[in-house]
């Protein structure tokens, strides 16, 4: 009997049929984490006791003949901006380190627990979620499991590294401009950024209220859908939460692409992508039977508007601390936050107007199309400390540019799933975005599942080749 099947669905099934105890699974997971985390730096807190306690409760319930949850005995972890009862919510920032521990779990953590998940701890991130590389001056850099000289992406880099290293099959993350999709792409795993307003953000540390999303990262398409189904449901604590009922997706995965009209995003999404990234979206387009290319108008301006709103809202949120405790901020983003706090209202106003216009144009495109495909990042994982990336001969600053392809999509709240692909050259993965109209996460997940079924999400080589 093997206590570490690779996927959440596999673990839950093994537990459910009595093949393995939750405690055995928890112990094995904690051992794996203890062995790999010193190198990866994905966990900032490991909640050993809690994982064991949750496991023992599951074993006891099973002994009593109770039905187990859909994520029974599945180890997971949450980006450290989620409230976890008993530990301080860091949001990657030393600024928050002296805060009192959270008194309760965030609703999404509660939902994972109610479904039988075993919480293994809190995961590293870019400070205050402002970054795409999980390079954190105060809590250390998270390393990419496929190449430890490279970043895991960010800001949910602890989440993607934890899943990509096979330490937990599911992790929770957040995505404001790409913070689930970028690390999923660079680590070669699956991720879902649901529609804006779908999952409640209650009990999570905010960055940009009008752009923040929470969502799962997972090792397979099935796990991603399962986690998402477990996380759904209304919650009064988040005023932007749409309070929709659960719309399950797991059962519809096997419907595949039946009847979906699919197109690939060209124009901006090709121009801002390296050859490897373009090849990934073309390959996914072929595998999904894309009808052709679609060019959206003014994408660069939409991305710029997302940048302005992020800077301004993010900066305003921390204005008081920027005044009083600048030394506690992450040096990599402090001046960016401060600059954002000084942005004139007119710039923000125009960016908001751009947002509604752009949303309307994109929704028009969705009258003819059900799913759009684009690369998730312009390039594969960069080296830690690398300041520049080259895209089509232009050199661009790495940290803001990693979100070039994700930012325009989250800007208008569309649901997006990321599926990994593995280029023929090199040892690094790159993800593709599968984008659907609002509230149609089911379509994103069906497409991801179809790519998985087509075999293009699987890593062809086993051993990572480190760069020197």
């Amino acid at each position, binding site marked *: 009997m093997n206590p570490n099947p690779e996927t959440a669905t596999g673990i839950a099934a093994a537990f459910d049929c009595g093949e393995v105890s939750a405690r055995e699974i928890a112990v094995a997971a904690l051992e794996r984490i203890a062995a790999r985390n010193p190198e990866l730096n994905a966990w900032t807190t490991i909640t050993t006791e809690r994982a064991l306690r949750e496991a023992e409760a599951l074993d006891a319930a099973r002994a009593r003949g109770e039905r187990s949850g859909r994520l029974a005995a599945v180890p997971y972890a949450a980006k450290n901006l989620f409230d976890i009862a008993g530990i301080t919510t860091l949001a990657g920032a030393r600024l928050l380190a002296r805060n009192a521990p959270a008194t309760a779990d965030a609703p999404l953590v509660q939902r994972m627990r109610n479904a039988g998940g075993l919480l293994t701890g809190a995961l590293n991130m870019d400070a205050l979620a402002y970054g795409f590389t999980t390079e954190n001056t105060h809590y250390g850099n998270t390393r990419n499991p496929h190449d430890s000289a490279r970043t895991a992406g960010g800001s949910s880099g602890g989440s993607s590294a934890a899943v990509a290293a096979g330490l937990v099959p599911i992790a929770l993350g957040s995505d404001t401009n790409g913070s689930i999709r970028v690390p999923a792409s660079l680590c070669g795993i699956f991720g879902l950024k649901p529609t804006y307003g779908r999952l409640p953000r209650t009990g999570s540390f905010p960055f940009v209220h009008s752009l923040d999303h929470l969502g799962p990262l997972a090792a397979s398409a099935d796990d991603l859908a399962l986690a998402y189904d477990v996380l759904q449901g209304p919650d009064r604590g988040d005023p932007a939460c749409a309070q929709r009922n659960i719309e399950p997706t797991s059962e519809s995965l096997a419907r595949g692409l039946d009847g979906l009209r699919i197109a690939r995003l060209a124009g901006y999404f090709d121009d801002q992508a390296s050859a490897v990234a373009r090849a990934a979206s073309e390959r996914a387009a072929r595998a999904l039977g894309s009808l052709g290319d679609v060019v959206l108008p003014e994408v660069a301006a939409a991305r710029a508007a997302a940048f302005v709103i992020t800077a301004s809202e993010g900066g305003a949120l921390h204005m008081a601390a920027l005044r009083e405790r600048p030394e506690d901020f992450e040096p990599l983003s402090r001046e960016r936050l401060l600059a*954002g706090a*000084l942005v004139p209202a007119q710039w923000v106003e125009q960016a908001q107007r751009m947002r509604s216009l752009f949303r309307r144009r994109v929704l028009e495109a969705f009258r003819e199309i059900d799913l759009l495909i684009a690369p998730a990042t312009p390039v594969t994982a960069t080296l830690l400390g690398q300041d520049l990336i080259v895209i089509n001969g232009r050199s661009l600053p790495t940290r803001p540019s990693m979100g070039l392809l994700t930012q325009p999509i989250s800007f208008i709240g569309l649901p997006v799933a990321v599926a990994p692909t593995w280029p023929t050259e090199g040892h690094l993965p790159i993800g593709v975005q599968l984008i659907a109209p609002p509230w149609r996460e089911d379509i994103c997940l069906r497409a991801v599942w179809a790519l998985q079924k087509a075999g293009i999400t699987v890593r062809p080589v086993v051993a990572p080749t480190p760069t020197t």
Partner: protein
Amino acid sequence: MKRLIEAIDLVKHFPVGDKKRLHAVDGLNFHIEAGETVGLVGESGCGKSTLVRLLTRTLDLTDGQVRFHGHGIGLIPARAMADHPMRREIQMVFQDPTDSLDPRYTARQTIAESARLLTDMSGSALDRAVEETATHVGLPFELLDRYPHQLSGGQKARVGIARAIVVKPRLLVLDEPTAALDVSVQAVILQLLDRLKREMGMSFLFVSHDLNVVRLLCDRVLVMYLGQIVESGPAREVFARPLHPYTRALIASLPGGLAGGQTTDADLLIGGDPQSPIDPDAHRCRLFGRCPRGVERCHTLAPPLREISRGRAAACHFVGPTEREAFVDAALAMHNIHVDPARRAALTSEFNRVAEMARLVQAARLPGDTLPAPQYRP
């Protein structure tokens, strides 16, 4: 105004053996408007003459475009230029009048030959044109039948200028027009050029390593360093308030120094070795090593030439739009936020980045904007 000549991403690399390339002109973008006088300054070897030869199409481009009145002329092979109709439109005045005049021709013959080759004038019309031009450049008729060796330096310079303007070009390019002249003669020739500039409707490009020439004559100035433009703007503003560390150093080294006597050591270039023009590092600021303000970042991130305020541009991480700087200072004061001076430059560059994004948003046009901007009657 209309763009007369325009350079777009203009590049000239010379192969210098061993697969190495000397980047004499390395990605230049600028234009000269009709009727405008532009000065090109920079130390010897920075690529000024190479640029001139690219514009006059006497040297083939490595890459990029040259447009004249909107028409691409960059692909005309240099060897085809002698017979090309474009040749009349752009005329050159060379640095050394002695070298550039044929000793076997009298002044009259030299001027007439140019007109005969490039225009359809002949006979008495040609004679009239030669004499009008001589009057224009202040060359007494009695000197017209002399050979170069019978003329003084200043007189030869006038013949060189007359030969170029007799065909009425739309752009006159002068490469170091006074460098070979005695100081006493220089002033007279500069006065002549100043008068020609005001009397004739054409555009001028003055190339000089001597800033005074440019200060005196030009509407606008381009400052070049190692194959690239590092600053551009209206001459008066650039001399009054140079932005780029290199321009500041050039002006600080003139008698009188920077306006307002503000020159300090921090304005002078440091003694480090200049970078080599052979295969320079694309990610490093070309001035790094000699720049008094250079920091680690200048070593890994080359600053692009960007607009600083209306009509002014500079390529340096530390030159930010000054109106914006003032805005940032005021906003910081209003919010009662103190910024460590060591972090101020980083704040400026972050603020500039957001400003650039806001500008992109402003420039975008999405059809179906249902909230039109309010209209005001004047």
